[in-house]
């Protein structure tokens, strides 16, 4: 059996991994690998997905996989790229570097930026669950504003994270990459297409994946898909791709649901008051408006 309704039946991220029940990141990995297929080498950063997938002597991986440290997946992928080239073995092999939001937005961003500057051919995928989950839900640069984490708690004086979400996809696109896209388990067919497109390009490409973490978000494990959908419908996590510098929506949301619906399902937002909900709504509106304003135009200079 090859495909089931357009999705490969083969699994490369095997059952038996130790992710929590309902883990959105595990679901995303499963589908990334289905789209990438067996001719893929993965370099993964430290984080939940690495920890749950490879407790020696077991591995959930059915493709060649390497983990080095938390901040260096892109650098390791650079070495793989050039190592294969140097031996004439680069052809026909996909290379994916992957990291959580902590690895990608924060500590490993220097290495990613360096790799993009050199223009290596590989796809970097940031699996974003908006906090350092593996170490117990600490704030990252990707944490959604006002979300409470263990280092940006819902305190008596300060209510959760005070900074906006680092706009990583734009930052990456500004490096001059010819393909950057956001993706979500709410649209697995779209995800498949994006992984395939990204891997087909000749330089570094970047994918930003939305990943629900029931543990860190204090939501029900059964809500993983529901939240993924709501994130799109509320415009919290828009699906788009920036192909050759031009941004297009893949699932444009004409009539957004109020952000509140999204927040209410998650314990990490339990503390936000009405005023803060308003601020979050405005934050989401502004970001989406900006996307709308650049839609369809050459908004990024493409170098590669």
């Amino acid at each position, binding site marked *: 059996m090859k495909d089931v309704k357009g999705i490969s039946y083969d699994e490369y991220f095997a059952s038996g991994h130790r992710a929590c029940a309902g883990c959105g990141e595990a679901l995303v990995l499963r589908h990334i690998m289905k789209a990438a297929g*067996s*001719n*893929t*080498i993965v*370099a993964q950063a430290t984080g939940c997905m*690495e*920890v749950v997938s*490879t*407790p*020696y*002597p*077991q*591995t959930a*991986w*059915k*493709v*060649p*996989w*390497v*983990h*080095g*440290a938390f*901040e*260096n997946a*892109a*650098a*390791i*992928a*650079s*070495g*793989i*790229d*050039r*190592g*294969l*080239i*140097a*031996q004439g*073995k680069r052809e026909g*092999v996909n290379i994916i570097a992957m990291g959580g939001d902590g690895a990608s937005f924060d500590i490993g961003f*220097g*290495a990613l*930026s*360096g*790799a993009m*500057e*050199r223009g290596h051919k590989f796809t970097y995928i940031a699996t974003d669950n908006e906090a350092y989950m593996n170490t117990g839900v600490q704030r990252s640069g990707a944490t959604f504003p006002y979300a409470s984490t263990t280092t940006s708690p819902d305190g008596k004086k300060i209510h959760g994270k005070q900074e906006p979400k680092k706009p990583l996809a734009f930052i990456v696109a500004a490096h001059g990459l010819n393909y950057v896209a956001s993706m979500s388990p709410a649209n697995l067919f779209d995800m498949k297409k994006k992984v395939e497109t990204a891997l087909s390009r000749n330089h570094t490409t970047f994918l930003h994946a939305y990943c629900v973490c029931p543990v860190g978000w204090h939501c029900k494990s059964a809500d993983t898909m529901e939240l993924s959908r709501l994130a799109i419908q509320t415009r919290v996590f828009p699906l788009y791709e920036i192909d050759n510098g031009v941004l297009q929506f893949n699932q444009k949301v004409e009539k957004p649901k109020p952000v509140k619906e999204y927040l209410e399902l998650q314990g990490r937002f339990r503390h936000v008051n009405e005023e803060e909900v308003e601020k979050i709504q405005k934050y989401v509106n502004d970001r989406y408006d900006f996307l709308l304003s650049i839609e369809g135009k050459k908004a990024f200079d493409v170098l590669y």
Partner: protein
Amino acid sequence: MKTVIEASEAVALGAKLSRVKVCPMYPITPSTHIPERISDYIFDGEMDAEMIHVESEHSAASALIGSILTGARSFTATSSNGFELMYEILPILSGMRLPAVMAVANRAVAGPINIWNDHSDAVSARDQGWVQFYVESSQECIDTIIQCYKIAEDKNVQMPVMMCLDGFSLTHVFENVDIPEQKQVDSFLPPFKREDILDVKNPKTFGPIGLPDSFMNFKKQQQDAMINAIDVIKKANLDYKKLFGRGYGDGLIELYKMDDAEYAILAMGTICGTAKAKAEELRAKGKKVGVIRLRSYRPFPVEALKKAFKKLTRLAVLDRHISLGSDGPLFTEINAIAPGLDVFGYIAGLGGRDVTLDHMESVYLDLETGKQKREWLM
């Protein structure tokens, strides 16, 4: 081919002759001439390798993980703060048992920032599971880089190797070097073959979590590999000598006028040359002095050293680094294995403070008189 070249070029040629395939490199004084020469070779098409212009040393070391795991022989070079920025990755490379080879152009570690020579960078990484050589001459550089691959890739070792050469005091010195022929090097060093690689036809997992049930056993394996390295180093030195006519002591330590020496200086790197020059002078005056050059600091060749100490009355250890709040690491380690011996300890040549013939004379004098046993050679 005999010629005069800079030691940095000797290092670069060593890498080229070893048919290195990937070089992730980042510049830092005084190691810069090494990537510069390699860049020349690659950009001129004389060396069939990939230069990765990494954005930091952390990424240089990390890229080594990737490139070696594809089966490509790989090389890098660094110094001081660059070395320190790699620090996290050093034990990962050794823990993964990857035969990386790195040239360390030794330089003082900041702060204050200082670009000159001492051993604080590499010596402070002595625990990290890398074989560490300290060399004395440009000739030894080129010969040792080739040997490094032989040792690192030996199936009983499979550990990364760093070759430490003194920054400026060696890296920037032009001197006589006999460059080995490629063919001969090829016969000494076979192509890099590795079974465990990233291969889509045979998928394997590298770098998993080691739980408490296995981690310590892996460390024991690493320690065993380091101990194995002792014989492998000796053999590499011997085999190389057979082919090229050059050897460096037994590969682990080099003895200079030690047959009947009563007093000896023990050190690493270029200051051994200066000690030798002084010893030669004093020998002419009838003093029974010698020099022990420690070439392999890791593995620490306990037996070879103990043997070398046998006839000694007194030994002076010169450390080009200090474990602040304790003592010179070499002094401590020698003391630990030579309980009977009268060991004098000197901190010397930190941050480019020159170690002179006068210094050496004063040390030999100390050994003779036995009055002063501890000093900073300022």
